[in-house]
């Protein structure tokens, strides 16, 4: 009991430290937060990287501990909910552009559409020369990158922000967090398994990319999952509508369209749908689009959310689970080269590839060795 309390207390302190650490990444041109700007992350790159790796390792240790505690039945459902609430409640205050500037793109695109009343697929933020966001956002010279579902949805946090940048920033964070919580709720409804809930909701990559960095991938994934859930309840038309909403958020779920259509066909013909297989093949399909993403730009860590949510629905698929967990660790390591050097070129691209795939090779190697060792022992 004491050990558990200690674990919970240190976890909340740990999350608070992440929040403090995140503010060391404030962009020097972000005038709205100039009073708390320190420039620490940019002036002390080595120390910042060491701290980041330390936070990452600690987060994974907590993750593994929580999973172990649950497996030993030492974590109740209420305690898991408390952990999720604590994670959300603390990290919602983290600076969102610690690892990625995407949240500024979301705000800028919403601003083009809802404030300037221009088509964001034609006009770029840079077309509005006096726009204050231009000082610190990174994709000012790009038209809207996301689908129309996202553009329309982003109007909600933008309007709640009422023209105040800080309020808008945090209303976007809150908006994403609501979808995060809704996804967890769906996972529980679909699987009725708290292990899947912990796997997803306390996964460091999911937490970093969703609660801290506020990537909209969670919204796309939520609608895809909702469509599967509705399909399992024989609400075919509603499922199709939500699936389309998902596709028109970020287009990646288009890759699971054949699997979705197969499930629809089975449902319409009143045949049994093997949902575990549907989730498995959907996860594999999302892995495929994930690996194809360098064709467009590069593998971004938050793309892992696409397959993680599906892989965690079926934890009994051990190999998929193992690969997914290792990936969620290794993909976060991709931030290290830039954090350390401040350079996207030179050794950085190769370092990113090595950091992404070497842990997978090591992890799978260890598993194979372990399996063959057990075979030898039991012979």
């Amino acid at each position, binding site marked *: 009991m004491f050990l558990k309390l200690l674990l919970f207390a240190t976890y909340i302190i740990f999350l608070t430290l992440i929040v403090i650490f995140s503010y060391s990444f404030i962009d020097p041109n972000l005038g709205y937060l100039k009073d708390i700007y320190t420039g620490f992350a940019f002036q002390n790159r080595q120390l910042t990287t060491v701290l980041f790796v330390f936070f990452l390792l600690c987060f994974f240790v907590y993750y593994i501990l929580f999973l172990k505690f649950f497996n030993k039945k030492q974590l109740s459902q209420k305690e898991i909910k408390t952990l999720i609430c604590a994670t959300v409640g603390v990290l919602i205050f983290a600076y969102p552009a610690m690892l990625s500037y995407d949240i500024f793109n979301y705000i800028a695109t919403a601003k083009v559409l809802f404030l*300037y009343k*221009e088509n964001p697929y034609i006009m770029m933020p840079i077309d509005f*020369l006096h726009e204050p966001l231009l000082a610190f956002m990174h994709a000012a010279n790009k038209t809207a990158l996301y689908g129309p579902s996202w553009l329309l949805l982003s109007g909600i946090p933008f309007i709640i922000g009422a023209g105040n940048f800080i309020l808008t920033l945090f209303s976007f964070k809150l908006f994403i967090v609501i979808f995060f919580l809704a996804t967890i709720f769906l996972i529980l409804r679909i699987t009725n398994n708290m292990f899947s809930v912990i796997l997803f909701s306390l996964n460091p990559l999911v937490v970093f990319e969703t609660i801290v960095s506020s990537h909209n991938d969670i919204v796309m994934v939520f609608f895809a999952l909702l469509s599967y859930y509705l399909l399992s309840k024989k609400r075919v038309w509603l499922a199709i509508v939500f699936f389309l909403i998902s596709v028109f958020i970020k287009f990646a779920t288009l890759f699971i369209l054949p699997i979705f259509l197969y499930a629809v066909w089975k449902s319409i013909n009143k045949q049994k749908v093997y949902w575990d297989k549907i989730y498995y093949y959907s996860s594999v399909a999302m892995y495929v689009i994930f690996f194809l993403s360098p064709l467009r730009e590069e593998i971004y860590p938050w793309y892992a959310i696409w397959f993680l949510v599906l892989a965690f629905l079926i934890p009994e698929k051990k190999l998929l689970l193992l690969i997914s967990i290792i990936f969620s660790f290794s993909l976060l390591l991709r931030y290290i080269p830039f954090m350390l050097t401040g350079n996207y070129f030179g050794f950085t691209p190769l370092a990113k590839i090595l950091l992404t795939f070497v842990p997978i090779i090591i992890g799978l190697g260890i598993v194979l060795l372990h399996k063959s060792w057990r075979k030898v022992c039991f012979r």
Partner: protein
Amino acid sequence: MLLFFIFSPKQFAFAQSSYVLPYPSEMPGSKLYKAFVLWDELMAYWYFGNLSQFTYSLEQSDKYLVEAKTLFEYKQYYFADNALKESDEYFHEAKRALDRAAVERKDIKDKKTILREAAKKHIEVLESSRNRVPETFLWQPEKSQPTMLSIGSNLSQSISVRKSCF
């Protein structure tokens, strides 16, 4: 030789504007022409917002100008004259969209420069066409009344539309 270069008239100079006009698209009479026109009309809704409308109208003005120029070259004066009127109307609309954007306090400095560059290029094209076409032309369709086309004055009118933005 030196005196020739010093006193040679300016219209002998190479392109005055770096603005680039599009390639000619479908021409009247083509089976796809009406479909393209319909598509363009539908696209007007896609280009909502005054700055987007500016982009759309200027693109349309460019397109119809190139169409008019090509048709003048093929001596299709009736269609060329129509295309010229469309180009003028879209050019007007581009200007009006910019004015509306200015009322909305949007920064239009860059767009104004683009409009001026476009106007310069349009004037180059229109002036070169004016030197090649007759002042008037009697267009005689097969089964209806003939129409006198005032090509020269229409071209002058188009040039003055462009000059109004300087």
